[in-house]
């Protein structure tokens, strides 16, 4: 893959966008369940149904939305709200950066438009495809749209009929994203370089989890793993 020469403009293929929308439909059903849990938790804090739905539509980042509810009271402290939202979602910065070799071949407005629906699941697929030599930004858009819709529909269900799913963890639903991301990680290419990076990332993430401020472990672990790649370059023997 050409990494230095300016390449052709990346054009999104509408058929592939639709294909990726359908590909992420099964996992989106689980996202609906998660959204339902959020909607229920939000109305229990006294947030109006419309407000909870608006939050899901505009923020579209589940973990930080649940964390915001933890801060909820008659008042919400502004700085902790911003700090926690940023810390939990700062993984997006690294995810977006990793897509840059593809995104830079796209006109700027389209590039930033696409990123509106960047989230864990569609990014994980795109990143895995890229590791395997396929350029797939279609999954960011198509997959992102179905995940966004699912999060919205789930929140709506939760604010009106949430009682049905008060304890999603009973059904293992809190592990959907974890299992999904693990399947993506193990489906990627494995070689000694990647394994060393994973060990370094795991150790750094645990150290940050125990000893650094809350919610910093993803960024710390990922950057530590990246350092391995910085010093240990892949030999250009295969096609990628």
């Amino acid at each position, binding site marked *: 893959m050409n990494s230095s020469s300016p390449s052709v403009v990346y054009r999104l293929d509408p058929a592939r966008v639709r294909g990726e929308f359908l590909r992420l439909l099964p996992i989106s059903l689980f996202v609906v369940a998660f959204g339902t849990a959020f909607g229920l938790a939000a109305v229990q804090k006294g947030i109006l149904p419309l407000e909870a739905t608006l*939050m899901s539509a505009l923020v579209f980042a589940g973990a930080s939305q649940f964390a915001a509810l933890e801060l909820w009271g008659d008042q*919400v402290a*502004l700085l902790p709200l911003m700090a926690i939202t*940023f810390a939990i979602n700062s993984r997006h910065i690294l995810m977006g950066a*990793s897509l840059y070799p593809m995104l830079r071949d796209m006109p700027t407005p389209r590039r930033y438009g696409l990123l509106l629906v960047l989230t864990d699941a569609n990014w994980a697929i795109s990143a895995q495809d890229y590791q395997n030599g396929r350029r797939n930004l279609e999954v960011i858009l198509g997959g992102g749209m179905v995940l966004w819709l699912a999060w919205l529909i789930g929140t709506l269900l939760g604010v009106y009929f949430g009682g049905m799913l008060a304890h999603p963890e009973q059904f293992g639903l809190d*592990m959907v994203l974890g299992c999904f991301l693990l399947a993506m*990680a193990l489906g990627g290419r494995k070689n000694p370089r990647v394994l060393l990076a994973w060990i370094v990332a795991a150790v750094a993430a645990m150290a940050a989890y125990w000893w650094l401020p809350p919610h910093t472990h993803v960024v710390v672990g*990922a950057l530590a793993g*990246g350092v391995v*790649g910085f010093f240990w370059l892949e030999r250009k023997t295969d096609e990628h």
Partner: protein
Amino acid sequence: MSIETSSQGILAIIAIMALVTLATRWGGPFLMSYVTINPRIESFINTMASSVLIAILTPMAITGDIGARAALGTTAVLMLVLHKPLPSIAAGIAAAAAARYFF
């Protein structure tokens, strides 16, 4: 400084969270547009990308309950044997539900 959770206050909270989250979605590619991508930088971001997943998953597995461990263990084994994501994920979720029901 605090925001009251009146209806206007909640709209402000939503707007602030949306803007902060948007900054994280846009920030990475924005910063990268100032970086010259050479093979070393590309190797860094590729390795970092696969490490993101490990950094999310490791604390989940180590500090999680028996359900979380059953889920991740089941998905890992099936994924390495079958190489099929959907059955592996579904079995992982079922394992979490079963582990929490029985233990």
